[in-house]
């Protein structure tokens, strides 16, 4: 990579998150967990951005990869978590990585058959894969099927979520700035021309899926150990859409924008919840005047999508171009 400070920045971010997590006990638990979700959503959005934004493969099944990572990590820590309390950190890291790896394999399985598909078909098929993964978990008794899986150890803390987020941003950016990045962008801009120029589009498409899925699996593992109870219905199409909205809001292929969008969209439901809980407003006689607002999260998401595409398809946090993709 050409820029010198990136590695330093990564170390600073890791140190910062370690520091904050040491003081986490002083922080309101509700706010703390919202911060965890911010970190997890950043990882999800940045990894999806790699597939959708940089490589132009419009994938609607990202929640499936998250599910694979979540269940895998949960099963591992449930099984081995009680053995040695001092090695908890190592175990957690191992579980997360295992979840990510298994999710990466799933990404491979999804990426390969979809090689010939474009645009709409690709979107539908990835949606289908996401749903198939969910249905598989719903029928897998070993992980509790529809009854859900309890995750005994809540290992997730500030260090892990933000450390992982920082690492994800670093890796994705490094990848994009390498020859792989050139390949991704070539595939996105014009696949046929890229093939004609001798670029192995298969390699790049599959790599994008595998790396994106790996980080989604990582995020899934972190999610599992924060919420401590997994149900397959939590990894459905709506969850995938929520991540897609972050990528589109931030601007496809625009990592800083996507990070910002992830932060904003994680805080949005909490903001709505706060607004709905406002007991009264001067001048309005009704108690809880905004109570209906709490349920409008998905309506807002859908309106965002429509309005953004009609007016600002490059995303809210992109200032350099006017189309969804560069050029």
């Amino acid at each position: 990579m050409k820029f010198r400070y990136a590695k330093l920045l990564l170390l600073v971010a890791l140190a910062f998150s370690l520091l904050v997590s040491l003081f986490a006990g002083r922080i309101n638990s509700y706010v703390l967990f919202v911060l965890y979700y911010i970190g997890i959503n950043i990882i999800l959005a940045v990894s999806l951005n790699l597939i959708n934004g940089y490589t132009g493969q419009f994938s609607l099944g990202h929640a499936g990869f998250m599910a694979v990572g979540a269940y895998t990590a949960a099963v591992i820590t449930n099984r081995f978590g009680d053995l040695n309390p001092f090695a908890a950190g190592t175990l957690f890291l191992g579980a997360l990585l295992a979840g990510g790896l298994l999710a990466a394999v799933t990404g491979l399985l999804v990426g390969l058959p979809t090689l010939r598909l474009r645009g709409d078909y690709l979107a539908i098929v990835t949606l289908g894969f996401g749903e198939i993964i969910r249905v598989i978990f719903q029928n897998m008794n070993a992980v509790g099927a529809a009854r859900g899986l309890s995750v005994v150890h809540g290992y997730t803390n500030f260090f892990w979520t933000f450390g992982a987020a920082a690492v994800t941003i670093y890796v994705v950016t490094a990848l994009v700035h390498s020859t792989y990045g050139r390949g991704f962008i070539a595939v996105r801009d014009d696949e046929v021309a890229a093939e004609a120029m001798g670029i192995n589009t298969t390699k790049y498409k599959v790599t994008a899926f595998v790396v994106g899925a790996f980080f989604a699996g990582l995020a899934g593992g972190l999610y599992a150990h924060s919420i401590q109870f997994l149900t397959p219905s939590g990894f459905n199409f709506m969850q995938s859409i929520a991540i897609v909205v972050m990528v589109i809001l931030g601007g496809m292929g625009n990592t800083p924008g996507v990070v910002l969008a992830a932060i904003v969209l994680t805080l949005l439901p909490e903001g709505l919840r706060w607004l709905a809980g406002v007991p009264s407003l001067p001048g309005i006689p009704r108690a809880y005047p905004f109570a209906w607002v709490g349920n409008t999260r998905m309506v807002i998401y859908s309106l965002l999508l429509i309005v953004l595409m009609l007016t600002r398809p490059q995303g809210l946090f992109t200032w350099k171009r006017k189309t969804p993709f560069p050029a």
Partner: protein
Amino acid sequence: MTEFLQQLINGLAFGSILALIALGYTMVYGILRFINFAHGDVFMLGAFAGFYLAPKIAAVLPTPSVASGLAVMFMAMLICAAIGVVIERFAYRPLRRSPKLTVLITAIGVSLFLEYTGQLVFGAAPKSFPPLIPVYPIAHLGGLSITSNQVIVLAVTGLLLVALRFIVLKTKIGMAMRALSFNPEAAALMGVNTDIVISFTFALGSALAAAAGILFAINYPAIDPLMGILPGLKAFFAAVLGGIGNLPGAVLGGLIIGTTETFVSGYISSTYRDAIAFSILILILLIKPSGLLGRKEIEKV
């Protein structure tokens, strides 16, 4: 044997409803080359339109009766045709010259908007659809059971298909639709008013979806704002299976998916029911992407 026939009838009835929705998908794709994700939700709106219209119609016509059923269906079709035109006008027309991805995302946005605003406005809990048509058991031969509702579904689907075929093959606007699906620029050069024809296509597709919604609600009288997601998706798969852009193909695809699902549900396990439809889609896209009856499209570079 009886069980097999029974499952077959059940599957055909369910598949006809899918076929009606699939027709809308395939028509829009044939002309605009894009998947209208919101189509399944127009189906849902048709059912809700029927729900709210039924008491009003009941005040005028005796209910349940064939007349009231037809009146409700007809009015729901009109309402949804209008909705389809409005959606096209405001969400899709401004993006006609934009990259395909933009329209795709917008379509997803419209679909979600209809679903969740529906939840806000109608309430998320399922509502019971009033019986519009009197139900008679038609046949009970040796354990086999066919109800009048199932016969009505098949009959109405058949009638609408004939009507559609007539419109597409024998009228001027049908010819314009076919011209647009072959070559939009040439059609425009030949004096076809593309805006009007596209609006008409959307109206037609949405009306069919509304009819499907009413038929569905008559057979399965619990309606809720999210009811359109799965049938819409499966109908899209049906359209792809039959060859997207191909009208008879959409019907064939619908019937195949309906019957396959029913057989798998009955003989193997129903928990994998939804996964079946997805798997069929993936298979057909891998083996013959142009569908059973479709032509291979050459992509020009």
